[in-house]
């Protein structure tokens, strides 16, 4: 009986993991492109990690790095060929050119910090 419960719980947990990491699309935080978007770099995540911006406008991101680990040192927009070294406890400005509609990932060097920029038609 106990074993059944454990097995059921295990399978439920498996389903939950698949659903949480692959099934649900995280909420995108929509931002106007007119002012800099602040991104906090701390505890292994970018906050916000999913940013929505309008297409065709340059975007400025202000990265505030709080994590002293070297993992957080760089932010890389691999698809755009843009990267920046983030200074600790201060803001680093990253300016992106006007982007076409689509999704652009930004990560640390090791891909442990992950964020996504969702560019949509005028919001």
């Amino acid at each position, binding site marked *: 009986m106990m074993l059944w419960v454990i097995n059921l719980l295990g399978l439920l947990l498996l389903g939950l993991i698949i659903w949480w990491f692959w099934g649900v699309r*995280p909420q995108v935080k929509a931002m106007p492109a007119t002012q800099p978007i602040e991104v906090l770099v701390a505890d292994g*995540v970018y906050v916000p990690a999913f940013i929505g911006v309008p297409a065709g406008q340059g975007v400025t991101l202000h990265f505030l790095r709080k994590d002293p680990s070297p993992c957080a040192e760089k932010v890389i927009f691999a698809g755009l060929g843009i*990267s920046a070294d983030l200074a600790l406890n201060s*803001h680093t400005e990253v300016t992106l050119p006007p982007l076409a509609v689509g999704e652009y990932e930004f990560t640390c060097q090791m891909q*442990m910090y992950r964020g996504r920029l969702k560019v949509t038609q005028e919001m």
Partner: protein
Amino acid sequence: MQHGKDQQIQTIRLSVAGMSCAGCVASVEGALAAVPGVSDASVNFAEHTALVHGTVSPARLIAAVVQAGYQAAELRNEGDEADKQAVELAYYHRLIRQTLVAAALGMPLMIDGMVGGLLPAMMAGVVGQVTWLVIGLLTLAVMIYSGGHFYTGAWKALRNHQANMDTLIAMGTGAAWLYSMVVTISPGSVPTLAHHAYFEAATVIIALINFGSALELRARGKTSEAIRRLLGLQARTARVVRDGRELDVAIAEVGLDEILRVRPGERIAVDGVIIDGSSSIDESMLTGEPLPVAKKRGDTVVGGTINGPGSFLFRAQRIGSDTVLAQIIAMVRQAQSTKPAIARLADRISAVFVPGVLILAIITFLLWINLGPEPRLGYALVTMMTVLIIACPCALGLATPMSVMVGVGKAAEHGILIRNGESLQRAGQIDVVVLDKTGTVTAGRPQLTALRPLPGVDEIQLLQWAASIEAGSEHPLAAAILDAARQRHISVPEARNFSAVAGHGVAAQVDGHEVLLGNLRLMQSRGVDGSAVAGMIDALAAEAQTAMVLAVNGSVRGVLAVSDPVKPDAAAAVARMHARGLKVVMLTGDNRATAAAVARQVGIDEVIAEVLPQHKAAEVSALQARGQVVAMVGDGINDAPALAQADVGFAIGSGTDIAIESADVTLMRSSLHGVIDAIEISQATLRNIRQNLFGAFIYNVLGIPVAAGVLFPFTGLLLNPMLAGAAMAMSSLTVVSNANRLRLFRSSGGR
């Protein structure tokens, strides 16, 4: 850029040049104030600086000033690197403290587990239970102090639908602690055989992983050695001449257009042009060129290089982030953040790695609890924990970036700027090296070596015509003819209606005569009979001299030949390319015989001659059509299309006067050794990346199944979760250390 907690408002200082009157102040202030995001801007006319408060990037402010008709550059304190090192040291000490605290509890517990008898048994009545409850609470305190960052990181990532290394460590150690607490508080809820606490595992794992991170931090510091070395080239102070007095100021205080004094042996602060005095300057730190370069009035000097025995004054033209050194540093940093295509698979895997490991861990647990021997729960828990702990996304994630950091940095130390990871990867796969002739194989400074007038024509007259027609041309051959005329003190009458025919020659009117100077094809196209000099041209060409026919009013008057000496180390560099199995091709607009003569001197395999500049790219693509990976080496300006067409374009510079970022690879030194050095560094880096990726893959592919217990049915062996923690800490350290081996790279040229 630094600013307070109130992130939006920042202060930017600009140096503004070109303000000649107080009226300019208002115009610059107006231009700055009009930039959206500027809250206030004030210009100090005496200092030629502007102070701006607002939420705007320096680049936008500079653009606004330039738009208004002035020049500007940001004044900034470059304290970044020292700050960074202090931060890293503090972080290192924190990790060591966290390691020691965790080990202080974990080690005695581990020893007790192995030796036994030091602590009362868990089942030894109330004393035992209370002792272990206290140990459990102490463990919790250690987990919070030494491993708190894993749990907050894991939680925040989870909330964002993400998972990272923190998730694995938090789950592994968290499960160990929870289970142990259940056993301690309510022994009855767990089968007797499974009565075991894993507090020591939780603390030792945290100690090991923190210790691994500390060692990794140290090793990582070495990977950015090249950048530190470049940053170290920046002078800290400069001697400026203000109001006729010389005073030493911090480098951040040097403005545009200021006059600076450089004394013997001093480091040059910023980029500029010499206005008084002369010296020889050691530029080896930027270009790798060992010999000092003589500089006189009107020549440019570059910040970071070292003055020789002379003293001079120069005018600052580029400061701050605009200097050549700053641009090199920026380019190297940028390139260090990119990855070659070879890393794509690893990136794709690491994106799904952690959730994948979570799934594997649960499957492991379920398999053991259903199929394992007693105590099933104990085995299931240990194997699940070991799978979570041994899996190392970091080694996979670090494999490529660490090697690229070191490889690109190493190249920079050799005066080679590699644009990105893609260029690095392709440079390591080159089959054919195509060399432009002039300025690449040869010195690029041609001299007049033959003056052959036809019978009845005066030698001086021939040179005078040639000099007149070439006076308006910027071609290097023209410079050789003009130099020769100047040396012989020949007056040069003005030419009219000058026209250049690309790849053929030039035409103009001199003293009312139609003068043509160029190759035989130019003569043919203008209906001039060149047969009288054809033999002479062939003979000169066989000696690698470029012969030009001079015709006046439709008839040939003579031949002038110019030759460009081969670079002294070109043959040695080509020999090194051959030793690497590379084919070397020369591409030139010159005639076949001249080109062949140069090729013979240097040992080039194949010559493609008489190619018009606009056809060079087509020749490169013809080579590519044979299925070969082609590198093109040229000057970056005239050869730009061919450089772009090639799989890897090498722009070869002469000293610091280069157009950075004009090609995939920029060689700061004019020697061809740079090409083969770049290829060797790229190959070594790629080899290193492959080793790292292989190591990281194999580690996980073998480690995870062993942790899950696949060996148990055959050998009865199970991996201890603490050993898994040590293995995981070592795996990323190994990757970083292997990348650091690249620092020992030596080129086959032995320099």
